[in-house]
């Protein structure tokens, strides 16, 4: 019974046809992400995380099952589901400001443009000094912040991110994770992030969906309620908490099982 609030994926499967052969990427995935929560898709390479996220975005159609967001069926891309890709996809011909304004402009959202939404999100990702710079003048981490600001400025109901910090160095990565959590808590956006990093998954996620591969199935759903008892924005305390270590070990074992099956 899909709830009408939040993301609901029920019995979704995906089969690719390539070279005359059918490849089943995902089988019978059912999961719920309540509105305002951060969900993480975690799993070994090739288990279908990107495929699932792209289906939620409407960039790919499920072979079976249905996906609904806040009660509406998903069948094509739309403004309600903003996506941040792994490779920093700023439009090279637009300045930072114009990149962030792009979504509002193509939707002719005058009121948001006039209310200073663009400036607000440029400030939120800490790029106010670079508002007039072009993407080629920015580092990878900065370009990814442009992409995040551009997506959020469009006020999506669900923010989708496919390994958004995968190519960044650890220090920048930690900064970006905190930045993301800060903005998301403030704006109360729902988020679905793909990750293959256990620490990142537990740090970002309210719920972690662990997928196994060949074909991709939902193997386990892990809730991280323990974080509410910890001081907020304190990575140190998080990493040293009993619960974190227990879950980290548990997920590591799941990963190792996957590796053994593949071998």
């Amino acid at each position, binding site marked *: 019974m899909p709830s009408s609030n939040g993301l609901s994926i029920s019995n979704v499967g995906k089969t690719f046809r390539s070279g005359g052969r059918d490849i089943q990427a995902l089988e019978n995935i059912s999961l719920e992400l309540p509105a305002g929560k951060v969900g993480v898709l975690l799993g070994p390479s090739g288990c279908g995380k990107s495929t699932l996220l792209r289906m939620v975005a409407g*960039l790919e159609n499920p072979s079976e099952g249905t996906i609904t967001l806040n009660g509406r069926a998903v069948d094509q891309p739309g403004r309600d589901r903003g996506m941040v890709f792994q490779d920093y996809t700023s*439009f090279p*011909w637009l300045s930072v400001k114009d990149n962030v304004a792009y979504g509002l402009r*193509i939707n002719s959202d005058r009121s948001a443009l006039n209310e200073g939404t663009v400036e607000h999100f440029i400030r939120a990702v800490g790029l106010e000094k670079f508002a007039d710079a072009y*993407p080629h003048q920015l580092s990878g981490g900065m370009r990814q912040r442009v992409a995040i600001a551009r*997506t959020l400025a469009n006020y999506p109901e669900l923010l989708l991110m496919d390994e958004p910090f995968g190519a960044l160095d650890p220090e920048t990565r930690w900064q970006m994770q905190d930045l993301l959590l800060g903005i998301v808590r403030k704006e109360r956006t729902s988020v679905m992030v793909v990750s293959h990093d256990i620490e990142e998954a537990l740090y970002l996620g309210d719920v972690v969906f662990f997928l196994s591969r060949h074909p991709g199935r939902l193997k386990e759903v892990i809730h991280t309620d323990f974080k509410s008892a910890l001081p907020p924005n304190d990575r140190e305390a998080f990493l040293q908490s009993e619960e974190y270590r227990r879950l980290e070990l548990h997920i590591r074992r799941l990963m190792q099982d996957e590796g053994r099956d593949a071998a």
Partner: protein
Amino acid sequence: MTAKLSDRATGQALEPVVPTSATPKKRRGYWFDFNQSLPVNQRLILGAVGWVAFFLLWQITAQMDLAPDRLYPGPVAVFDSLKTLFLEQNFLSDVISSITRIVASFVIAVLIALPLGLLMGSFARVDGVLNPLLGAWRYLPAPAFIPLLLMWLGTGNSQKITLLLMGVVFFLVIMLADVTRQTPKVLIETAKTLGGGRRIILWTVLFRHSLPGYVDTCRQMLAVSWTYLVIAEIVAATDGIGAMMMRAKRFVHVDDIMAGIVTIGVLGLLFDVLFRLIYRKCFPYLGRSHS
């Protein structure tokens, strides 16, 4: 970064490197090294060296009596006749006729090729219909149509402009479609997830991303246009650079013919520079990697 590279480029590389303990070891570079980028003034000097050498060689061989002066004049003689052509024989109007033909035919070619190329590069079904058709027309040499065009359109400007158009437009369509097709898929998908419809994505992503490539393609195809211009004006024309050269041939005025060649070369170069300027002015966001 530029400073570092120029230091290396001007360093005297041919001296043997003698390591001494007293002086700190200075990093030396080679005159010829891979991935060197030269400062602008050095590029200009090197370019001038090539041209000066060419003219010297030309002048020297012309004075060596290998052939009669009448058939192989040196650069000085050619520049003299160029002066005479412009000052006394109204060569400027020939040049203007030629430029008019080039510009008119090229503008028409771009007006036809750009929408077709954009649609073919964007939509597989449009490409599916037009690519086999236009791709094949590309291989029909435009000059083969001259007899037909002469019968249909006579010897006037419309015949020449049509020939130029036919020589360029099919290549242009296919090349502009290729440029469009190179738009990264992820940029299109980004625009989709931001709520963009097909019309908006066509203009704000595919067209906009391809614009620098379009300008560069036009620059290259314009060079091809000049080739067809000479063919068109040699066949049947009363004015134009090519017509002047055919007149000169009748009276064995080799210096005038060479002056015509030089004029075409200079004009081609000017158009090339113009397009490069447009490129640099309009697309600053491409950074320094493109020259």
